């Protein structure tokens, strides 16, 4: 019960391709967990399984003590899809207010979420007229506006300028300090250092599940990028790895 998310032997097929090959991992409460891996490694599929929109082939995903996708969880989980999913023909404010209403929140929470993602000055603009980075922040505001206990963010900082990225990470840590659990995916390794805990996946398999310090120690290098490279090489060389890695 201490973990916000517990994944057991999760197997997912998309089309005829096996995307996740029996992943088991846990995400602790009240912390920022980074889900790292290259594009196509299965990050989005794992996140979709956690929010309960992915058909799974085998294994189980338990979220806040209930099976993923349970009706009761929809009030408690916020989800940011990788491609921004907000209404381009509404303003930022109208989008935030709509998603706020779905969670039973009001206009004040909507304004707060818009400020939190740094869009206060663009609140009255149509989302369709925003830049790519602003567009994805509008989508982020709609994931945070319900003030959920668990926030699943699929690549929230892609395309953001460095100052904003730092602001967003500070925001994520402030939320975690207040008790919110965050699972944040990224394919940029320099974001890994900002996480309390790391999950590294590659080709649908979990390669590391540890704190950044422990990952560095296990690989024997300070640079996380290099540490991941070593862990990947080690996992491919290990006999426990499957034949297809060779």
């Amino acid at each position: 019960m201490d973990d916000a998310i517990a994944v057991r032997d999760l197997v997912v097929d998309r089309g005829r391709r096996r995307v996740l090959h029996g992943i088991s991992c846990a995400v602790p409460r009240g912390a920022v967990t980074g889900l790292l891996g290259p594009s196509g490694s299965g990050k989005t599929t794992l996140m979709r399984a956690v929010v309960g929109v992915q058909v799974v082939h085998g294994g189980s995903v338990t979220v806040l003590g209930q099976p993923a996708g349970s009706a009761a969880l929809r009030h408690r989980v916020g989800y940011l899809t990788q491609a921004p999913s907000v209404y381009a023909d509404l303003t930022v404010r109208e989008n935030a207010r709509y998603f706020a209403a779905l969670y039973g929140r009001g206009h004040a929470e909507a304004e707060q979420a818009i400020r939190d993602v740094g869009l206060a000055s663009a609140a009255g603009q149509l989302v369709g007229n925003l830049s790519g980075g602003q567009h994805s922040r509008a989508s982020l505001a709609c994931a945070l506006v319900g003030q959920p206990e668990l926030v699943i963010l699929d690549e929230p900082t892609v395309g953001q300028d460095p100052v904003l990225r730092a602001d967003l990470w500070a925001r994520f840590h402030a939320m975690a300090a207040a008790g919110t659990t965050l699972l944040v995916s990224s394919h940029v390794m320099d974001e890994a250092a900002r996480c309390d805990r790391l999950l590294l996946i590659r080709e649908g398999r979990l390669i590391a599940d540890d704190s950044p310090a422990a990952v560095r120690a296990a690989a024997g290098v300070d640079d996380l990028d290099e540490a991941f490279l070593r862990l990947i090489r080690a996992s491919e060389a290990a006999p426990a790895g499957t034949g297809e890695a060779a």
Partner: protein
Amino acid sequence: MNARILAATTGRVLRQLRHDRRTVALLVAVPAALLTLVYFMYADQPTPPGQPSTFDRVALVMLGIFPFVIMFLVTSIAMLRERTTGTLERLLTTPLGKLDLLFGYGIAFGLAATVQAAVAAGVAYWVFDLDTAGSSGLVILIAVVDAVLGVALGLLCSAFARTEFQAVQFMPVVVVPQLLLCGLFVARDQMAGWLQAVSDALPLSYAVEALQEVGAHADPTGRMWRDLTVVAGAVLLALVLAATTLRRRSG
């Protein structure tokens, strides 16, 4: 369903419509423009003795058909956009219920259709002297129920389309047969038996018959209410079927 979420969804759909001024203008102006066309088409046609003029007969039916066709198209594209932009998948991870979304669309576009039908009926009655034995209010009521039928069928059909190209193809499949067999071109009792049977199974036939009842009788008839009930039943059936096509989980 949840009243707060339903109201928020209805408001959201209406706000999207409000930002799209050109669509609003088309929704309001096109039926009136087409009625004008119908008026001049039949302007010089002789009226058979003891019968309503051809314009009265055709325009009355058109008042029910325009909202049906237009709302079918608008809704199937709107719902398809929810699917392709990812907002649908996201909505289904929130506390929103499937029926909140479907009825939200039904109510929002139903309200838009009320404005559309009122303007079209106003033009038909005041500009072109449309003559019906029954009240214009009933004509508008039936037109709005027709529009909601178009919305419900549009929501259902959008589930079977992956692209806009496919979605618009459902118009000839779903809408045109109903137009051909609804009794406007050939009276239903003059069709071959099997065509009548098909016509009996299509909801638009009942909507058209209800309008014809208003045209011919000063007071609402039992048959008109029965027809309207059949159309409303078809709306509910289509919405419930549409709800079963909304899957929270996908592959």
